């Protein structure tokens, strides 16, 4: 029982990370129709920026803001320089462009930061929190709090602010949105800024758990994408639920099947969902489209 609970707790921590990455995929896909393959690189940029600043003696709150800022700035520039000029191109071309962006950011990060992983300690020091026999690291608590905060803030933004509503309108019906005077170009930029900013923040929060390295992005991006697909790819809430589900599945597989096969199992899930139920496993009523 304790073992089951422990893998549940571990799984939920993993899942919260996947969820945050998945949300980024959903935001961009909904507004632009693009699967942003480079999504994981912004997470890496956030993590690397924060690690560098913290190592230079900057405080965590400032490092957090810088992580968001750098990731979103790069995301915005990429949207303007590489994505926008190719609008109207085929889906295939757009996928390839985001892959190119992903490799480029990866290579540049390698040149700037080198191959060695870096890290800083948990936000709050101390022993793991005991939860009915299962241990929950303090940083995991931060990850959960961060996930909840982002989910809440997103909900508020999309449902309560003019920009958020405009973005939703753009996702539901681009032509009608255009007639309402909503610029799809601006919304595409906003979606990239928002998604890459969230990715940067996620990277910063994850450093104490995963450490930061130039190639940390892709594995997380793939799982985040899986999370988004499980959730149906169009709803942020679905992506969060999908992420938690995937995390728990992966942790259980690692504990009860074989830790060596947990990655293969995660991607078998992705393959099966994509091929058999591309509309997603979860049909969340309240999960409105962005």
């Amino acid at each position, binding site marked *: 029982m304790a073992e089951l609970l422990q893998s549940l707790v571990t799984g939920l921590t993993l899942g919260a990370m996947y969820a945050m990455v998945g949300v980024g995929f959903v935001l961009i896909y909904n507004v632009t129709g693009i699967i942003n393959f480079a999504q994981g690189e912004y997470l890496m940029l956030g993590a690397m920026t924060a690690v560098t600043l913290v190592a230079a003696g900057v405080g965590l709150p400032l490092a957090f803001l810088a992580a968001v800022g750098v990731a979103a700035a790069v995301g915005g520039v990429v949207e303007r320089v590489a994505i926008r000029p190719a609008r109207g191109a085929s889906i295939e071309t757009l996928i*390839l462009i985001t892959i190119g962006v992903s490799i480029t950011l990866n290579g540049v990060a390698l040149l700037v930061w080198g191959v060695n992983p870096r890290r800083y300690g948990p936000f709050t020091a101390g022993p793991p929190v005991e939860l009915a026999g299962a241990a929950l690291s303090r940083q995991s608590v931060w990850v959960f709090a961060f996930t909840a905060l982002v989910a809440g803030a997103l909900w508020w933004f999309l449902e309560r602010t003019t920009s958020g509503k405009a973005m939703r309108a753009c996702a539901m019906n681009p032509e009608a949105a255009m007639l309402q005077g909503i610029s799809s170009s601006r919304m595409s930029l906003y979606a990239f800024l928002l998604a890459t900013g969230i990715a940067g923040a996620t990277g910063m929060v994850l450093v104490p758990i995963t450490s930061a390295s130039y190639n940390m992005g892709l594995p997380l991006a*793939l799982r985040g994408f899986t999370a988004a697909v499980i959730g149906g790819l169009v709803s942020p809430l679905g992506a969060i639920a999908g992420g938690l589900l995937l995390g728990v599945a992966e942790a259980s597989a690692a504990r009860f099947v074989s830790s060596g096969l947990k*990655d293969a199992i995660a991607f078998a899930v992705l*393959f099966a969902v994509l091929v058999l139920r591309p509309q997603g496993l979860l049909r969340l009523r309240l999960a409105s489209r962005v």
Partner: protein
Amino acid sequence: MSWPWRLAGWALFVLAGPALLALAGQVPFLTSGRLVFLAITALAAVGLCLIMGFAGQVSLGHAAFYAVGAYASGILTAGYGVPPIVALLAGMVLAGAAAAGVARAVFRVSGHFLAMATLAFGLILYYSLGHFRTVTGGNAGRGGIPKLAIGSWEATTDTRMFLLCWALVVLGVLVARNVVDSRTGRALRATGASEVAAGCCGVNVVRAKVGVFVLGALYAAVAGSLYAHYVTYIAPEEFGLLKSIQFLVVATVGGLTSVWGGPVGAVVLVLLTEASREAIPLFVEGATGPYELTIYGLVLVVVLLLFNRGIAGGIAHAWRARGRGGGGDPEPLAEDATGRPVPREVAP
């Protein structure tokens, strides 16, 4: 193009092999060993061009079939003493069968979903290679693979191996040309332009796509076998997502819709990345790791934004436009010839 031009083109292509070999002695960063990898990459990329350029299916899992070829060769020759050439053929059969199965599954979806499904397949195989140690040697890999031999002829030197690989690239391009320039090729190009119209012309769209996917996988399998016999050691590292992406970049930069895309892309990218491995450390002190990735990524984005037909495709297009006497693209026609909104694969 008239036949003398065509013949000249092929002659140039065949001779490019020895010419590269001669160049390898002159340029500091190019060795005949690198050229073997260049030819292997080119061969796999020709197959990927068929899949992506002619069946219109983005594949992010091409390295999986490369792995099947390599592991079939490695396991059969090192483990069971099977002659390399037989192992190579066995690898093709296995990869073909795997591709047929995967294709039937993934062609139920399209666009992003298809791309990500091929990616997932590639990763499943990659992680399985590391896990099933008794068969594959696990992450430590598997060594003791003999050099390629055909009868009493052995590819013992880099030069020999490269010439053999280059001959296979030429053969591969020839076969690809034959397929493209046939009923199947036309059916595939038609499917790429309008799947509905192709179906209504009697094209069995699924069979055509599966057929070309399998054919493309065979190229990767042969390339994988060549790799295993050249390096004589295989480990999962070589067959991961990065390899799939490398094939993808080579094919795209060379030109997806041209049978020449594979070799052209391989030559351009290998020369560029080898040169960059020399040049980058001059600017960035202490650069380590696979930083030539930067070049791959940049070249890919630039090529896609500036000439989306790739290098070989762009040259072929310019040549045809010259032949027509009229430059520039034709005026867009009808309402849906222009920016139709990108369809989402799944209705919300």
